């Protein structure tokens, strides 16, 4: 589904942030991506999400060589990948419902289906009563759940989450990971970038460890440092 083969990445002429990344994420897999702050977790997620292109090596997403794709070929692939951003990136001038509906509306889904699917997904994340409020009126945890609803409403094949529990308390963090596990059971491949070791220890999923720009796969239960 997503395959890195000796991928390297640098910003401009700066030092290489990621080096010799080689890994394949299969359909329906679940991984934690861990590593200290500044290790390159967000950069690796951005490569998976096609927001960046590798500066060397081969990156294939859904069997497409990303380095060889034209810019206009990227949006259809991005729509198959849900992304939960660390800073939520909700649009304050839109309601909770309209924020979550964005991925459906930008592909021209009929409004009747938008209403049905968005209402269902917001109820799933526990925000069924907050459809028409502004994101500004929500707590950090609630905003995070709106961002999750937006990421999964179009039933993506892959869900990437960048520090999804970074701004919520431990209990909300555990609930968010359980939501991702539910989605995983429905067949979505999930990659969660986090440096919350306590949270990672609570869930039995394989870990990808980024350290000094290189990636290693750790067996369940192992832990960095």
């Amino acid at each position, binding site marked *: 589904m997503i395959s890195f083969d000796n991928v390297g990445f640098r910003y401009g002429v700066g030092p290489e942030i990621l080096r010799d990344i080689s890994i394949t994420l299969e359909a329906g897999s679940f991984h934690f991506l861990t590593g200290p702050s500044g290790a390159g977790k967000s950069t690796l997620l951005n490569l998976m999400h096609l927001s960046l292109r590798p500066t060397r090596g081969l990156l294939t997403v859904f069997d497409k060589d990303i380095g060889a794709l034209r810019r206009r070929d990227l*949006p259809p692939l991005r*729509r*198959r990948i849900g992304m939960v951003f660390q800073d939520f990136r909700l649009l304050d001038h839109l309601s909770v419902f309209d924020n979550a509906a964005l991925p459906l509306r930008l592909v021209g889904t009929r409004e009747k289906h938008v209403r049905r699917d968005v209402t269902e997904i917001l109820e799933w994340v526990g925000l069924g009563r907050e459809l028409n409020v502004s994101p500004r009126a929500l707590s950090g945890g609630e905003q995070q759940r709106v961002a999750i609803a937006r990421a999964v409403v179009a039933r993506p094949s892959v869900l990437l989450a960048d520090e999804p529990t970074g701004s919520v308390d431990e209990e909300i963090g555990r609930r968010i990971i359980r939501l991702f596990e539910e989605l995983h059971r429905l067949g979505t491949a999930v990659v969660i970038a986090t440096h919350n070791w306590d949270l990672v220890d609570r869930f039995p999923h394989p870990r990808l460890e980024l350290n000094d720009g290189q990636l290693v796969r750790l067996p369940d239960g192992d832990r960095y440092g």
Partner: protein
Amino acid sequence: MSLLVTALMVVLGLTVLAGAAALRHVDREWRHAITDSWTLELNAADPGHAPSPDEIDLAVTTLRAIPGIVTVRQIEAAELDHLLQPWLGDPATVAQLPLPALFDIAIDPDRPPDPAFVDGRIRTALPNARLDDHQAWTRDLSRLARTGEAMGLALFAIVIVTATLTVAATARARLAVNRPEIELLHRIGASDAFIAQQFESGAFRSAVAGALLGLVITAAAGAAIVALGPAVAPLAVHLRLTLVDFAALAAVPVGIVVLATLVTRSTARALLRRLI
């Protein structure tokens, strides 16, 4: 482009085009008024005297015999006095002068005679006669009117170029202000076309509202000019619009709306290509 700027562009465009249409009409009026009538100046064969009745009869007879000349009318002495009085003063003085006889010649506009032929024919009969077909006047007046019209069209072109640059600058500013939202839309899979469409729709709505406002302002200004009359706006009395003029004026607000929409689209797409 903001609503008010669009309205201003529409007002400017309509005013300039209407002015050009009025000048074109003035040119046409002047040419018809002058070229459909010529003037014959007949001096007496005997210097120091007015032309004799025989010379006058010969002039009239000769002219009337030429095909394409509809009527020949000698300008009455009283009328001549009236014309000359501002320059020569007392009517009694004017009456004592050996003035030439003037003839107003009406020309058939459908088959006008050749001025050189008429001049030759009348000079053969009366060597002291001189025909004025007003071509020198009409050429200068036409040149003046056409220069005014060309300046109007050049101003209109400047309005269009200014509108284009303003729309492009506005689109760039809007994209810069909305950069975070644009990046988010890109990241969740929106195509450039989808994002550009959002800007294009906003530009279209704003341009339609601005164009309507511009039409209202121009109509109000036009009504005020008509009410104030020719003393305030002498050119306005010549503003008789043809169907082509109406079509051109109607195309101004429509064109500015289309321009705003298309320039916003192309600017947005060009800038989006530089983003992620």
